[in-house]
């Protein structure tokens, strides 16, 4: 039903590691601590572990669907729900992807506006950034993967910076362990799960992997590394900040960078914010690639034209989000939708897909 993708456009299975990790590790790292600490205080790291395990399960679910289907989200939807309903659901999913890409971009621009240039206008920066996104995505999936790969490797030196605040930290803050109820932990998971999103794009790029079934372990490794890094950041944050202070700080990770002083550079947070543009580039790129690819498949349009159209939408909405409060409201909305999509809808789809398959087998 679908033409196979040419061999030269496929990527090696182990690159899924970078696709997985690079997508999960984004703007969230700079300020995810608040949403968890708000509910569970010093037990925040437990929530991260639990989210990690949940994500592993969902990755397994997605592979179980995709391995059977050998297609992507669009074909899974079409097979499970029929052509019309399936396409409608795919379209809704793509709208969510687009909304998430706007969140990422606008959140980053906000960080730049707060930490570096208070007078920076949103639109010129968004325009230049989206131009680079176009440059990447128009190169095809191989280039998107390449950007993902380099954007994981090049800023990886930043991991070292998370160890610098340790002498200023007091790890007694983490004690006593398990001081919060399951209900509180569950609430914190809902608040922070969106920071770990990014694994769902597997549903789009699965058919671009060579020997896709063998890439599953790499996807799990990718998630494992993400969880480890989030855990590291969380533990250092808990040691570095007092609970009372942490609840006030909007971007704890950036605040931690402020303590770093190197012989040739003071005020590391500026370098951190700058490096983060490289970290978040592949995220926006892969999101827009997925969205445009999905639309191309559903409506048989030219992907380049779809891409330009999506970039325009992205740009316009970014410019419309002006104030901190609107951005915050928007992000919260996307986070809620995201939580239910990732941790509710994908398991639901998993069940539906397999049920459908069984019914068809019998019939």
């Amino acid at each position: 039903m679908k033409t196979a993708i040419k061999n030269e456009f496929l990527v090696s299975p182990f690159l899924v590691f970078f696709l997985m990790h690079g997508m999960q590790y984004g703007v969230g790292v700079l300020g995810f601590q608040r949403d968890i600490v708000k509910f569970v205080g010093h037990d925040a790291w437990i929530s991260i572990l639990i989210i990690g395990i949940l994500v592993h399960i969902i990755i397994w679910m997605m592979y179980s669907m995709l391995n059977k289907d050998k297609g992507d989200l669009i074909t899974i939807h079409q097979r499970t729900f029929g052509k019309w309903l399936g396409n409608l659901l795919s379209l809704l999913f793509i709208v969510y992807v687009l909304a998430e890409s706007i969140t990422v971009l606008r959140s980053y621009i906000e960080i730049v506006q707060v930490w570096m240039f208070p007078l920076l206008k949103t639109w010129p920066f968004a325009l230049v950034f989206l131009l680079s996104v176009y440059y990447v995505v128009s190169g095809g999936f191989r280039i998107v993967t390449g950007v993902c790969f380099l954007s994981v490797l090049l800023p990886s030196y930043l991991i070292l910076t998370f160890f610098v605040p340790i002498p200023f930290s007091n790890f007694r803050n983490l004690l006593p362990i398990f001081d919060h109820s399951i209900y509180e932990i569950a609430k914190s998971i809902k608040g922070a799960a969106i920071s770990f999103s990014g694994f769902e794009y597997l549903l789009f790029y699965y058919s671009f992997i060579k020997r896709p079934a063998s890439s599953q372990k790499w996807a799990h490794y990718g998630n494992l590394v993400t969880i480890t890094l989030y855990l590291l950041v969380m533990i250092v944050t808990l040691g570095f900040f007092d609970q009372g202070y942490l609840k006030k700080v909007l971007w704890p990770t950036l605040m931690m960078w402020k303590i770093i002083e190197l012989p040739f550079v003071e005020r590391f947070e500026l370098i951190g914010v700058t490096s983060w543009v490289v970290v978040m580039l592949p995220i926006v790129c892969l999101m827009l690639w997925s969205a445009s690819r999905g639309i191309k498949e559903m409506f048989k349009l030219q992907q380049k034209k779809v891409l330009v159209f999506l970039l325009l939408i992205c740009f316009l909405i970014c410019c419309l989000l002006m104030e901190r409060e609107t951005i915050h409201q928007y992000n919260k909305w996307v986070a809620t939708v995201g939580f239910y999509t990732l941790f509710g809808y994908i398991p639901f789809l998993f069940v539906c897909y397999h049920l459908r398959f069984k019914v068809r087998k019998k019939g």
Partner: protein
Amino acid sequence: MKKKLKIAAVIIIISSAYLFGRVQRQILDDINMTSAIGYDYVDKDTVKATAVLPVYKPDQSVGNRTITASDELSKKTLSKINRQAARQVVNGKTEVALYSKKVAKQGIGGLVDSLQRDPSISERMMIVVVDGEANELLNKKYGDRDTGVYLSMLIEQNMKAGLVPKTNLHQFLNDYNSELKDPFLPLIEQKNEDIYFKGIALFKDDHYVKSLRQDQQFIFQALSENLRLGTYKLRLKNNEYAAIENINTKNSYRVQNVKGIPEINIHVKVKGIIREYTGRKTDEKEINLIRKQVEKDLEHQAAAMIRTFQRLKIDPLGFGEQVRSRTRNFNDRKWLEHYSDVKISVRAKVSIIEKGVVD
């Protein structure tokens, strides 16, 4: 045609970014970087801010210039300071913030807020309390650098040497925002042509309440952190003096009876080298004597100091934090209520590991 359209789009994007995307420039030689800000008391609502602006001369020497302005808000004073300066005043390189004792007594929460809200302020900035007028202290030039850098170098050097407890803006904000702990800051004073450390200023929330004298400082530091390079001077019964240096301390807290009113036992291990002794000989007996004396002194000082803390209901050493980290379902309010009744005892164990090259 399509290619031309593409090229045109790229050119339009780049040129519009250049035309409309400009951000405010802060060219290094067109700005005045405050290196220190001091706050003095004027009346109940108004503070007087003094900013130190280093003047860099082409021959690489640095002069000192101060500008003073008063207003209700700290940021507002900065804009008033700006009005008096030929170059834009920025505070990203502020090394030290000084608060006079009088301002500190009124509470510095509002003033500190402008520091924690501003992303250009370093978390490593020093905050000190001045016994006297901050303005007077800042107006003088000490050493070869401007007063701000001089002060920060002075404080940093003393912290490294273990003479002053390690504090910075981050630590202060942590303690200030904490429900259980109270902040403390170094207290400095200007005398003649020099600045020296007078002791430790203790705060309740953001109000200055009391200062610790220089001689109580050692046990304070030993209880709050693990010192690496401390010094301690003691007076023996026979009117001889001994100085112990290169002191390593290690404290360990034990909390009992967490359910009811807790009991805190603190063990402090002190290891040091005798550097100076006015007595005749440092044989084993003498050293033992010194050791015992130090232990007794420390325990005594600690008990007195902690009593004062409990009386004032302040907790700069973080006893509450120690109890909290050992208690499930810790209740803040209950702890704060019972704080003054909690039994806290300190045991010191001193060992003298070396005594120099003569007996």
